[in-house]
């Protein structure tokens, strides 16, 4: 059977992608940030999975206001990096895993999560920046990726509680797949940031670090935090953090007998453009 080996959490700030694409990672502004991902790139080489299930949000790229799916799973064979208005990022095409993606869609829908199935979609920085941070600038991404897009743009977005439950359903789906694939689940976005209005630029280091602590140690309790606290404390765009609870919910210590995950890496940095950057790698213990 397939199994989830680890979960990875990271912010997906577009300016990070631009810094990588334009060779600016060595600049004093960016150096401390990329230093925090050096361990992760090495870890990724040593723990390359067979598939990455990548939870992210689309930023008015593939989904305009014509269609706003709350949870959308990419079942296509490949996904092109999108032109978000500055030209497409010079990164490899994302190869999907249609068999596993369709299997997960089937299982999760039967488990009462009404996913939208997407068979054609371009992917924006929300998906490609995490890949760049963990994999660098390869000719091809190291493994297939299943994009899983969550609406966090138009309110109300799914609750932390719902996301945490969905993660558990995704784990059940993965574990009911016959082929013995090693799957990583990534939760992306956040941390505290606000991109709009007179309060733009908000950063809440204390709240962010408490979120990281609780995500590791007491995710079920963290999942009870209401939307209002996210937007009040972590800024209007900080609400993206609910997506981390999908990845955390898929770990084997949740609603099961598994041991708590091992914290392989933890990093926090301010700022990347307008945003606080958080990053965690949690490994499932055998």
């Amino acid at each position, binding site marked *: 059977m397939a199994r989830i080996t680890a979960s990875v959490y990271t912010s997906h700030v*577009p*300016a990070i992608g631009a810094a990588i694409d334009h060779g600016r990672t060595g600049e004093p502004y960016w150096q401390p940030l990329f230093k925090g991902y050096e361990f992760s790139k090495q870890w990724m080489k040593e723990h390359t999975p067979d598939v990455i299930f990548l939870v992210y949000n689309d930023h*008015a790229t593939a989904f305009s206001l014509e269609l706003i799916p709350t949870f959308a799973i990419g079942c296509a064979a490949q996904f092109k990096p999108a032109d978000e*208005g500055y030209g497409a990022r010079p990164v490899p095409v994302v190869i999907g895993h249609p068999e596993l993606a369709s299997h997960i869609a089937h299982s999760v829908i039967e488990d009462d999560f009404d996913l939208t199935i997407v068979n054609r979609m371009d992917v924006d920085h929300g998906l490609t920046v995490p890949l760049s941070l963990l994999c660098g600038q390869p000719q091809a991404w190291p493994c297939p990726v299943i994009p899983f897009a969550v609406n966090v743009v138009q309110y*109300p977005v799914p609750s932390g509680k719902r996301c945490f439950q969905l993660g558990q359903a995704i784990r059940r789906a993965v574990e009911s797949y016959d082929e013995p694939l090693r799957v990583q689940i990534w939760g992306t976005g956040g941390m505290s940031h606000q991109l*709009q209005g007179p*309060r733009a*630029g*908000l950063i809440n280091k204390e709240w962010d670090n408490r979120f990281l602590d609780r995500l590791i140690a007491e995710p079920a309790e963290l999942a009870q935090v209401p939307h209002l606290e996210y*937007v009040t404390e972590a800024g209007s765009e900080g609400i993206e953090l609910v997506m981390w609870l999908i990845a955390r919910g898929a770990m084997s210590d949740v609603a099961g007998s598994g041991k708590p995950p091992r914290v392989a890496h933890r990093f926090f940095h301010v700022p990347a453009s307008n945003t606080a950057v958080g990053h965690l790698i949690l490994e499932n213990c055998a």
Partner: protein
Amino acid sequence: MALDKPYKNIPGTTIFDAEQSRLGYHLNQFCMSLMKAENRVRFKANERAYLDEWPMSEEQKQAVLARDLNRCIALGGNIYFLAKIGATDGKSFQQMAGSMTGMSEAEYRAMMINGGRDPKWGRT
């Protein structure tokens, strides 16, 4: 019974909910059209004429022409859509975000480097 919308009271913040989305539908869809290079060229060549192709309110069109992002947001715009205007103008996301705060670009950048805006800002 009315819906509970406690997020309306967060200082200096407009949460893009279904109500704002309905108000800003055409404004945001206009922004979306700037994802295509040929539309960016047409918009830059004659902004007013391009805007007139969209069933937006006059107030929305004026807010776009003035690049008044706070006004655009009050009229139903969402920042991820409005960012397409900034991209067309060659502005970074930081320049766009900073433009809504009343600070200069340098002041805003310095605030971010020094750890960002205090989360208690604007609270009573």
